[in-house]
């Protein structure tokens, strides 16, 4: 499903402040697999996620998602790729607090070439899968931390993506909500989603059937 070959990323390349964030990363992730990128802050795991998500371009190496090379996509193609293939879940939820849960979930679909009915079906399905349908009309600002994260999951699922990328998703959750989040991810994996989580939360290592990939100083620690 996802194939990274010799990926390197250097920030401020060619300047005295040049910094190698990723060094020769090669990683294969199968469809419906759940991979945990484990590492401390600054190890490069978030940079790796942003490269897989086409939010950032690698300095060298190749990134293949499905049959698509995403390393050098134009902005338009990269945005279509993110909209149709990926769902992002972030540490700080990144919701529009004044919008309702439903409107937040609809954000990725605003420019999607689909009908109103199709969009409504997808939004309903995403809300159901994230167990937040009962709060659909509530403003995001009024949700608890766990509910906000479920709203973020629903938004990530709105376009029915094949891949979910999670960046420190439990950092702002208590242990009960973190456990519920993990259960939710397992359900999604069972539905065929490929999931990559960048985290240093040990709770993910306890999950059944996940592969943990340690990242240290921009390299995969074998």
């Amino acid at each position: 499903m996802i194939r990274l070959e010799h990926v390197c990323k250097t920030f401020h390349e060619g300047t005295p402040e040049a910094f190698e964030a990723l060094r020769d990363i090669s990683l294969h992730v199968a469809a419906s697999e759940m991979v945990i990128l484990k590492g401390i802050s600054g190890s490069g795991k978030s940079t790796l996620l942003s490269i897989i998500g086409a939010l950032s371009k690698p300095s060298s190496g190749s990134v293949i998602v499905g049959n698509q090379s995403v390393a050098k996509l134009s902005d338009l193609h990269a945005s279509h790729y993110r909209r149709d293939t990926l769902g992002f879940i972030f540490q700080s939820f990144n919701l529009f607090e004044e919008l309702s849960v439903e409107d937040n979930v609809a954000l990725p679909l605003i420019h999607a070439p689909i009908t109103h009915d199709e969009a409504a079906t997808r939004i309903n399905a995403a809300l159901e899968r994230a167990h937040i349908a009962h709060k659909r009309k509530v403003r995001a600002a009024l949700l608890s931390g766990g509910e906000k994260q479920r709203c973020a999951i629903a938004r990530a699922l709105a376009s029915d993506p094949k891949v979910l990328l999670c960046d420190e998703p439990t950092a702002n959750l208590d242990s009960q909500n973190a456990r519920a989040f993990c259960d939710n991810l397992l359900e999604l994996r069972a539905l065929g989603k490929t999931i990559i989580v960048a985290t240093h939360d040990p709770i993910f290592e306890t999950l059944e059937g996940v592969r943990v990939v340690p990242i240290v100083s921009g390299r995969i620690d074998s």
Partner: protein
Amino acid sequence: MPAKRLIDLLFLLLYRHRRKHMGVFLLSTLIVFVLLSFMLTAQSLHHTLFSALEQQPDFIVQKVRGGRSVDTPTAWMEEFARIHGVERVAPRLFGRYFYEPNETHFTLIGIDPFEAQSSKFLETLVAGLDLKCFIAEDGMLIGEGVKAVLDHHHFFDYYVFRAPDRSKIEVPIMGTLPREAAVLGNDAVLLSAERARTILGIAHDHATDIALFVPNPLERDTVRDKLIMAHFDTRIIAKSELEKLYERLYNYKGALFLSLFTAVLLSFMMILYARYQGLHGSERREIAILRAVGWSIKEVLSLKLLENALVAFGAFALGFVLSYMYVFFLQAPLLREVFMGFENLRVHLWLQPHLEGATLITVALLYFTPFMAAVLIPVWRAAITEPLEAMR
């Protein structure tokens, strides 16, 4: 997807950034108000002045003696009427009458009621007035400026002029010229030709000057040459020269204002740019979220363009309404004086609503282009930075 969600998002962004938008909105409204007030005032005056000029004769011929203008013999009229291309010739009787108590001048104009029917200039001045009564009473019609001066000295119903032979001539006031005629007749006193001759001391075989109407513009140069050939002791004033004079005066003030306005506009752009340059964290995060969920840079820019266009358009609309009210309902206090000034009696010119589409388009371009550039460049810069950085 229906546009409703996009509209919801749009209004949410407007609400979230209301403080910033309010500051920009007020500043923009002020800029548009000032610029449009100037343009509307200038345009209204330009329109009024040039409409008045259109009614003037194509040539005015004055007799000159020793370099100064003197009364012109009416015998010349017959000669001028024979020149090919001249449609009509008419004597004009007018003169400046010194009003000592105020140390000012009235312009006395003698009118022939029959000529008034055929002169566009006089038609404008006396529009809506009862000429029959005016003729019967042998009174006078006075401009608003004259009326204010006479009222001040308690001459409510009549005024007593002094003729050159030291006789006193009491002339009843029959009415005031309409407000719309202020540009032509603010300091004017309209009397019968006979009375004007007596007060101004103009002989029966003379006039102040002679007006010539030459409808074909191609023939005007030839007519002018023939006038010079006919009498060397003349001064010929062409309408085209008056137009150039007005235009120069008008453009000089316009250019002065535009120079000042350019400086203000540059400051406005810098303020806007500085304001949007420092996009605060929540705004950068919004852009980053939209990019992460699959919006392209173009789609993000479109949304921000729409958000700011609403603010810009709202400010423009409000600025337009306020300036329209200021100029045409309140008669542009302060600003009008910048344009008008006054040489003799203070002119209370009534600004008549007049608006050209080209003016609105010019102001809109002068305003929207820098506005959108100042807003979109920082947003574009935020949109091309890596979203994950902004979302942390």
